[in-house]
């Protein structure tokens, strides 16, 4: 099963507002949290969560699950071997259902899948973008940079960059200048003023 579908199952539950999976070393593997949570703020949270796990493990007992309840939201933290899944939910969420679904998700996080996630994180690929496709770029626009590269106007793209294109959908900025010229002629036609001319008619026909 694709990892994005696993996390979709969690987000399908009523009241669930976001979920993410990160490593205890600070790597972010999957981020489906609301967009208003900035990366800097989340880095702080990540550091505190890891510190909390370590402190509780050493000074109390190894605890894998934490449910933190605030006035309007819940935070559910679930740990596997090297990863922590964080779920942000509203206060009306069914906690038992959330646990069941997250159990299934964690069950599917096989060592192979986790190795792929780790490799992607080390390679700098944003699996975030795989899970949450952001840019809706038209196919012509995405192909245009390659045409430009062939014409020699821009440096040719490396093969790895081409294969990684879906992962870098967020950085699809080159698509924008290509789209503009296609639109320009249309606006030029529309902008041309229409002149009023007098037409002389004879028996229903202009002459």
């Amino acid at each position, binding site marked *: 099963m694709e990892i994005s579908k696993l996390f979709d199952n969690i987000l399908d539950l009523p009241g669930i507002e976001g979920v993410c999976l990160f490593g205890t070393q600070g790597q972010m593997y999957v981020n489906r949290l609301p967009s208003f*949570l900035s990366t800097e*703020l*989340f880095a*702080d*949270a990540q550091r*505190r*969560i890891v*510190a*909390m796990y370590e*402190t*509780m493990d050493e*000074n*109390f*007992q*190894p*605890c*894998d*699950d*934490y*449910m*933190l*309840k*605030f*006035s*309007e*939201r819940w*935070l559910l933290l679930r740990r596997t071997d090297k990863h922590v899944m964080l779920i*942000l939910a509203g206060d009306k969420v069914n*906690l038992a259902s959330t646990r069941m679904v997250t159990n299934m998700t964690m069950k599917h996080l096989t060592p192979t899948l986790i190795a792929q996630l780790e490799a992607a994180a080390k390679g700098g690929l944003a699996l975030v973008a795989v899970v949450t496709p952001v840019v809706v770029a038209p196919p012509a626009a995405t192909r245009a940079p390659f045409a430009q590269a062939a014409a020699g106007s821009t440096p040719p793209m490396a093969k790895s960059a081409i294969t990684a294109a879906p992962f870098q959908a967020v950085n699809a900025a080159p698509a924008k200048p290509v789209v503009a010229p296609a639109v320009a002629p249309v606006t030029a036609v529309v902008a041309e003023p229409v002149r009023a001319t007098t037409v002389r008619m004879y028996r229903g026909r202009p002459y």
Partner: protein
Amino acid sequence: METSAKTVFAMTNSPVTQIMQAPNVLGYVHCSESGDVLVQQGSEVDSLANVLVYFQQVAGLIGESFGLEDFQEAQIQAKALTVICIPHQGGAAGVVLNSRSRVNETAAVVRQALANG
């Protein structure tokens, strides 16, 4: 005679007694904000008392990172037991439950007992 009866009544209806009488409760600890242990009863609470206030503070900070305020409760699940942590009188109250407990129901009992106390 009447005074002693009132004392016994008060003791049996104290928040700590009510909490300890709840099903599957193993222990209770109440720490001040500075970490001093104010009340401690039952088992499995010695090590909890050491980390309870720290945990509550970090939980509040984690919530702040997400823009969440007013930390109300935490449920900590270990293999053999569950801990409920509730802010109480400026400090933290921790209740240790065994694995068979119904955590949400017990949390409601604890919350009500602490509110009445």
